[in-house]
């Protein structure tokens, strides 16, 4: 009866024999064992533990079969007091069944070890959910792993962020972490670059950096140098994420199809590397939206070359600025002097209002609108504050 029941759940003959030989289970009668298995299985099933997980839990910690449902509920309650709900308890149990064998004080000890390193309650909760095996990590090893990062130059906050996101690093071989760091530095990054990049993307420690950099091959074939790619990664470490890397060549193709030449693309992206992070739809839509404001595609190419941020600005912001400059009589300059569109409109309007008291803005003196603060002050003896408050 017991053998048949266990076979129906999915236990192998080997696993069934294992139970029958393991103390104290071996001291139970078959009918008691069957009753226990059924009760605990039904309780776990109600809590969304599937057969595969149930087998894993019970073969890893066989003594759980000797527990009463009351005891299991008490354990769930202990975890509730530590901040984990029932769903989280079973998630942890499925991933690290040994947790069941730990008493409350042992679990609290692990919490304290992490608090002592500077992790807060939220970090600790996240670490345990992501990596319940942290309970098998000794405090000495945890301290050593944490200290390694601090010695390298990470701040405490940066190290906490990295370990909260990749808690398995607590049990990583120091040599492996050093190798990842060396791999990154090999490509021309400094220690401080490594810290910055890995603080953005701690998952890099789990990846092969060389393989990641291979994805930039399409840019190298396009005309980028390795040095410019290092510079690109320094500016936007996000680009190392696969969702961007996998579309690099497609984005270059889209920019080419919109009418940008190779050298223009390289220059434009060096000025605004975020272009490579926008979706293909966003790049196309923005281009077409600017075109719909009354410009040819070659005009739009020129405008974006002059002001690469145009790929990012909200189209309404661009439209309002263009309307204003047209009203001022400067509309014909927009294609060639698209850097106008960089400036905050309300700020330029304030300057326009002020300058108009003294002279009319025309094609000859429009540059006055775009002077930096020092030059504007030198010309008009008015501070930015006075200008914006209308204090003149």
């Amino acid at each position, binding site marked *: 009866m017991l053998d048949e029941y266990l076979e129906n759940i999915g236990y192998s003959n080997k696993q069934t024999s294992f139970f029958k030989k393991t103390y104290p289970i071996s001291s139970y009668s078959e009918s008691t064992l069957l009753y226990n298995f059924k009760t605990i299985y039904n309780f776990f099933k109600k809590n969304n533990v599937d057969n595969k997980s149930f087998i894993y839990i019970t073969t890893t910690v066989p003594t759980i079969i000797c527990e009463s449902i009351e005891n299991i509920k008490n354990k769930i309650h202990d975890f509730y007091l530590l901040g984990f709900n029932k769903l989280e308890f079973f998630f942890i149990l499925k991933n690290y069944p040994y947790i069941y064998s730990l008493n409350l004080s042992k679990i609290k000890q692990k919490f304290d070890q992490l608090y002592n390193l500077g992790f807060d309650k939220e970090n600790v909760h996240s670490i345990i959910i992501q990596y319940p095996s942290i309970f098998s990590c000794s405090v000495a090893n945890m301290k050593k792993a944490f200290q390694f990062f601090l010695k390298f130059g990470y701040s405490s906050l940066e190290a906490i962020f990295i370990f909260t996101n990749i808690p398995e690093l607590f049990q990583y071989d120091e040599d492996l972490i050093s190798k990842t760091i060396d791999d990154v530095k090999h490509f021309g990054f400094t220690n401080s670059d490594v810290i910055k990049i890995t603080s953005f993307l701690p998952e890099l420690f789990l990846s092969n950096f060389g393989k990641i950099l291979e994805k930039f091959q399409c840019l190298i074939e396009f005309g980028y140098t390795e040095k410019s790619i290092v510079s690109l990664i320094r500016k936007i470490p996000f680009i190392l994420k696969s969702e961007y890397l996998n579309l690099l060549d497609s984005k270059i193709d889209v920019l080419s199809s919109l009418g940008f030449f190779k050298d223009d693309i390289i220059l434009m992206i060096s*000025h605004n590397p*975020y272009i490579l992070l926008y979706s293909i739809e*966003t790049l196309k839509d923005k281009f077409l939206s600017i075109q719909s404001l009354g410009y040819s595609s070659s005009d739009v190419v020129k405008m974006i070359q002059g002001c690469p941020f145009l790929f*990012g600005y*909200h189209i*309404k*912001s661009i439209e309002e600025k263009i309307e204003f400059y047209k009203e001022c009589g400067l509309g014909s300059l927009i294609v060639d002097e698209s850097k106008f569109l960089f400036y*905050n409109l309300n*700020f330029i309007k304030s300057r326009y209002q002020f300058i108009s008291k003294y002279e009319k803005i025309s094609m000859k003196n429009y540059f006055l609108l775009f002077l930096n603060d020092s030059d504007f002050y030198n010309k008009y003896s008015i501070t930015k504050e006075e200008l*914006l408050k209308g204090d003149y």
Partner: protein
Amino acid sequence: MDVLIRFGFTIEEIQNMMNSNEDILQVDDSEIEELIKLLKGIGCSLNSIKNILSCNPFYLTRGLNSIKKLLNKFYELGFSYLYILFDSNPYILNKSDTDLEELYNQKISEGLTKSEVLDFIQYNMFF
């Protein structure tokens, strides 16, 4: 994402932001609300906030404390009317406070005066 809708973002605008930065999905609505309130607090209009987030959806995944530190650094270095700067150059919000300080110190060591450095950062797209 409800908080973005409450602030007046359209579904299309939200979708565009998420297409560029899918990590936005991991950020709590309460944090997004605080990040937007920070921009409102320094004088950004709703249209300006839409412009900033359209350009730089990565702002929403910077973390509130990092942004607060960055803002404090801007003020410490003598910047004012940050809403003007952020509307022109939303990407500057991705810098850390140490990045900003390093850039400032680098320019000072190159011989620029304080006001020249502020002008360089405020009126320069390419750095």
